[in-house]
């Protein structure tokens, strides 16, 4: 029971209080670039969740069994290579065995290699000294949090399309200000689960 509450609080913190995009500023590029349409935002987020969890499942043992304690300085270079390899592998496996999923997510997968949210979460799991199971749930929560931010923001942006905006604020500036307001609302979660 105790471990259940611990996992619940990790999930809650990862989704709401420490939201990847809105409070940690990881994965801003897809957040701004791919959030124009809700369904695109959804597919992209599903791909991110998948890669985050698999990447954590692979990098955590590598760090703790191979790199620690002597070669921790190799963390950056090993992690990015492992993530790049995993993304390729997931792409190949999906293409071969689960075609419909590949058709839906395939185009987002190559992008995810250079998505800082994925590298970020694998590193945060190490710096925060989480255990293996905790790390997996933290990754899952971070992915779901990413999805939540993407979906909420794609809704906001659909409204922005029709809004009457002063000339100099059109485009990126108003999008960023809108992101500020969404992020402000997430500040309200501070204190929950923390």
């Amino acid at each position, binding site marked *: 029971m105790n471990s259940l509450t611990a996992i619940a609080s990790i999930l809650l913190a990862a989704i709401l209080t420490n939201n990847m995009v809105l409070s*940690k500023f990881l994965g801003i590029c897809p957040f701004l670039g791919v959030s124009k349409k809700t369904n695109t935002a959804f597919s992209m987020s599903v791909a991110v969740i998948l890669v985050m969890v698999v990447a954590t499942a692979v990098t955590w043992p590598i760090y703790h069994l191979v790199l620690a304690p002597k070669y921790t300085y190799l963390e950056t270079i090993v992690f990015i290579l492992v993530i790049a390899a995993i993304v390729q592998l997931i792409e190949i496996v999906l293409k071969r065995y689960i075609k419909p999923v590949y058709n839906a997510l395939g185009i987002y997968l190559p992008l995810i290699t250079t998505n800082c949210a994925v590298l970020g979460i694998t590193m945060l799991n190490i710096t925060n000294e989480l255990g293996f199971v905790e790390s997996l749930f933290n990754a899952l929560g971070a992915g779901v949090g990413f999805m939540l931010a993407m979906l909420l923001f794609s809704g906001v942006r659909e409204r922005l399309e029709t809004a009457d905006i002063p000339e100099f604020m059109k485009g990126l500036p108003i999008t960023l200000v809108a992101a500020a307001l969404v992020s402000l609302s997430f500040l309200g979660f501070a204190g929950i689960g923390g």
Partner: protein
Amino acid sequence: MANKYVGYFTNGLVKENPTLRLVLGTCPTLAVTTAAINGIGMGLSATLVLVCSNLAISLLRNVIPDKVRIPAFITIIAGFVSVVQMLVKAFLPSIDKALGIYLPLIVVNCIILARAEMFASKNKPLPSILDGLGMGIGFTAVLTLMGAIRELFGAGSLFSFPVTANFISPMIIFLLPPGGFFVFGMLVAASNAIAKKNGKKAVEKMGCENCPAKDSCGQEECVKEETGDE
């Protein structure tokens, strides 16, 4: 001849400023700029990586096979990031603490990969170094400016020296995540207005859409989907 080299250098400062004109590397721009000094630290670390990786990639440009160039670039960049990470940790521990996880995340900063793909892999070493230096300084300048604005409003100080803290109570919201988005939005608006006055277009696309290297990392199809011309 000399003019051409100056052009390589100044390109990244204003005309193709990576942060305000190309809108790349937004994550560190928003995350670490809670103080001006952090902006400088982040900017200079990225500049060092950018110059070194541009030089290495330019020297290896005829050796790296075209098909595996992106993984090769990432490996080179990751190597230099590890070097910078260790240097900062050893000599500037306070900056290392302030930048935290964003320092290793320079690996996935799209400015660096974009310059490798668009410039260093096609040009000689000297222009590549100048390009890296210009882009890096352009990045550092914007980060420092943004850090200064957020520090001034959010903590009432500048480079840790109190300025307005004694008579105006600081607005902490500027140091929190919403403040980052807001200040960046205002900076882009200002830069757009200046660009327009000089007859240039405002920044329209954002995120990966803007990245000149988007074709090579698969973004191309993604943008197509996004704009609806499937």
